[in-house]
């Protein structure tokens, strides 16, 4: 019998026992829906996690510090044994920065400039943390959904506010864009050799300025700290608010907490803010050149992170990247997805038993009909294929319905979750995600599971003795 005739006969048979076949199909649909919902939840959560992490700019970055800093601050605990090399600790200064910039696959090297300070806005003072943001951070994705715009240039006197800080300034965060705020900070002003000597002799200035004879000779050459000592001078800078962003992209370790007021990195460096390393380096006599607590090395591809990290370690620096954490995350989600798949598959297995039951019942009911078909010339193969087509049609229809139901369940979960998040004043997220491959997989699995379930009834129907079947009442 030709496929078209088989399909027409199967469709007719399915229509004749519409209630039972509909319930069986619904059973399959529920099974597929649970499979799709579980899978979409797993994939959705995985995507959510990776999107959040990738937006943070962590995946293509290697954070470099001196090995001594790694020991002092602890650093990432698991990374420490690997990172501590036998070579002597190297200083993280401009030479090192330049050398790091020459490593293959490295596109940018920049220091982390982050400092706590005070901001004045519309007559009120606010304490906050300022973070310098490199121009390359524009592509991280953290700024994709920002309100307003990214910095117009590397030295623009502009500020982007983190949403929570923006809410501190005004409930209508959108209205802040275009307004000005006043940044108050303490600038590190270098002391020249003679001034340093005076300070060394005096008592009053001892707390704010520190001499260093060894570095004094360098002072005449440039604007670098002439003596190694410095004064702290209060300064102010007007910044125009140009945007509001949900979160700060990761540009470094974030040692002083999250940046709530973001400014161009170049501007932040020009401010010459006193950094925690300054005092230590000055006491160690390393004041000739500025040193950095950490440097962030931006790599051209996340795939190159491991190679770059190994190279930098070989240069005698301590490194940390999110790679290890990512590996663990992938492992976690693989196990998580597998568990969800198992639970989803259980429902589909139960549904497939429904198909077996329905078709076995159909054989009993249609015993005489099978006998008639055989008497009229139907081969065993025709009868088998007829039952197969019926099982396959239920599977296909159940699969399509199941995908639709699974999608609805996913949407319902997302809506419910977002309603809760909204009450908690948290941003909306999409916790389920359905891809085309998932739709194809679910319908395919449903179809083939149904065919497998129809195998036994179909072969039983095909083996029926026509003489006995014709006698059946």
């Amino acid at each position: 019998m030709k496929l078209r005739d088989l399909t027409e006969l199967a469709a007719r048979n399915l229509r004749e026992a519409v209630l039972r076949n509909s319930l069986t199909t619904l059973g399959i649909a529920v099974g597929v829906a649970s499979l799709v919902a579980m899978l979409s939840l797993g994939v959705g959560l995985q995507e959510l996690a990776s999107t959040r992490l990738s937006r943070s700019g962590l995946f293509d970055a290697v954070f470099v510090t001196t090995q001594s800093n790694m020991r002092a601050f602890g650093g990432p605990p698991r990374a420490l044994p690997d990172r501590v090399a036998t070579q002597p600790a190297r200083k993280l200064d401009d030479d090192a920065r330049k050398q790091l910039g020459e490593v293959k696959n490295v596109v940018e090297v920049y220091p982390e400039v982050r400092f706590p300070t005070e901001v004045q806005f519309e007559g009120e003072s606010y304490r906050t943390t300022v973070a310098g943001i490199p121009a390359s951070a524009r592509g991280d994705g953290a700024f994709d959904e920002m309100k307003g715009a990214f910095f117009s240039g590397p030295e623009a006197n502009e500020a982007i506010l983190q949403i929570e800080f923006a809410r501190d300034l005004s409930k209508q965060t959108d209205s802040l864009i275009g307004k000005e705020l006043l940044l108050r900070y303490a600038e590190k002003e270098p002391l020249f050799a003679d001034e340093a000597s005076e300070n060394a002799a005096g008592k009053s200035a001892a707390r704010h300025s520190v001499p260093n004879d060894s570095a004094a000779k360098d002072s005449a050459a440039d604007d670098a700290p002439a003596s190694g000592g410095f004064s702290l001078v209060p300064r102010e800078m007007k910044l125009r608010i140009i945007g509001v962003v949900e979160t700060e992209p990761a540009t470094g370790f974030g040692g002083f907490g999250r940046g709530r007021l973001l400014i161009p990195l170049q501007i932040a460096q020009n401010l010459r803010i006193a950094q925690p390393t300054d005092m230590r380096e000055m006491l160690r006599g390393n004041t000739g050149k500025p040193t950095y607590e950490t440097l962030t090395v931006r790599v051209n591809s996340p795939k190159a992170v491991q190679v770059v990290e190994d190279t930098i370690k070989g240069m005698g620096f301590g490194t940390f990247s999110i790679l290890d954490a990512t590996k663990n995350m992938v492992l976690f989600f693989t196990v998580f997805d597998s568990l969800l798949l198992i639970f989803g598959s259980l429902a589909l297995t139960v549904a497939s038993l429904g198909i077996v039951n329905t078709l076995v019942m159909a054989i009993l009911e249609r015993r005489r009909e099978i006998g008639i078909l055989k008497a009229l010339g139907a081969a065993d193969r025709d009868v088998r294929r007829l039952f197969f087509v019926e099982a396959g049609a239920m599977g296909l229809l159940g699969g399509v319905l199941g995908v639709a139901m699974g999608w609805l369940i996913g949407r319902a979960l997302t809506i419910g979750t977002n309603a809760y998040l909204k009450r908690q004043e948290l941003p909306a997220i999409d916790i389920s995600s359905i891809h085309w491959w998932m739709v194809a997989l679910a319908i395919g699995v449903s179809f083939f599971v149904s065919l497998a379930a129809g195998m036994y009834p179909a072969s039983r129907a095909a083996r029926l003795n026509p003489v006995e079947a014709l006698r059946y009442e």
Partner: protein
Amino acid sequence: MRNNSVGEMTGNSNGFAIRTERVSRQYAMGEALVHAVDDVSIAVQAGEFVALLGSSGSGKSTLLNLLAGLDRPSSGAIYAHDHNLAEMTSQELAHHRSHTVGMVFQAFNLLPRMTLEENVELPLRLAEVDRAERPARVREAVERVSLAARLTHRPSELSGGEQQRAALARALVNRPTILLADEPTGNLDSVTGDAIMHLLQEINRNLRMTIVMVTHDKARAARYAHRIITMRDGKLVPEGASDEIA
């Protein structure tokens, strides 16, 4: 009319539409072995109308099922146009049922959910006849049994006689050479039964179609068939002894 004459048993089957050679069919019933058909040899000429007469349990329906290829013999050979059904695969037997023989049953065996037209078209689907050709074939078959006006009716909307005529149309639609009828008038009143017998006779005459009809109605068999083959306890009843069969 001849009675219980057996055709040529050996050699080629020229002239015979169907013949059997010492065919037997046994069933195991518990520990007992039932000989439903026991060493039966018959030969039916092409275009002949033969009645298989016998009381209930005589083995006539079993023999008809064997001729139809619905059942396989335990021993012996069954030739339909020189092809031995006993040696056929199940696929070949299906082809035999589809193309060589048409069957009519006492209980009509129409599919209740299908219309008359769909019931008659069903063998064409199974025989993979071209879709474009089917409507004409269906119309030809239903016109032969005078049911052209009832094409869209379901079996439940037809009388017993009409249902049997519809079953006849279904049996004829694939243009078989042999028509096998199992008690075709068994469920009909005498007038309707006679009408069906007239129809069978007409088909036999006009289409030169070989007909083997199972019946226990000796009078009807004598009136319409060319020849009567009588069975008792699975065996052929010898000529002369058949008069004893009621």
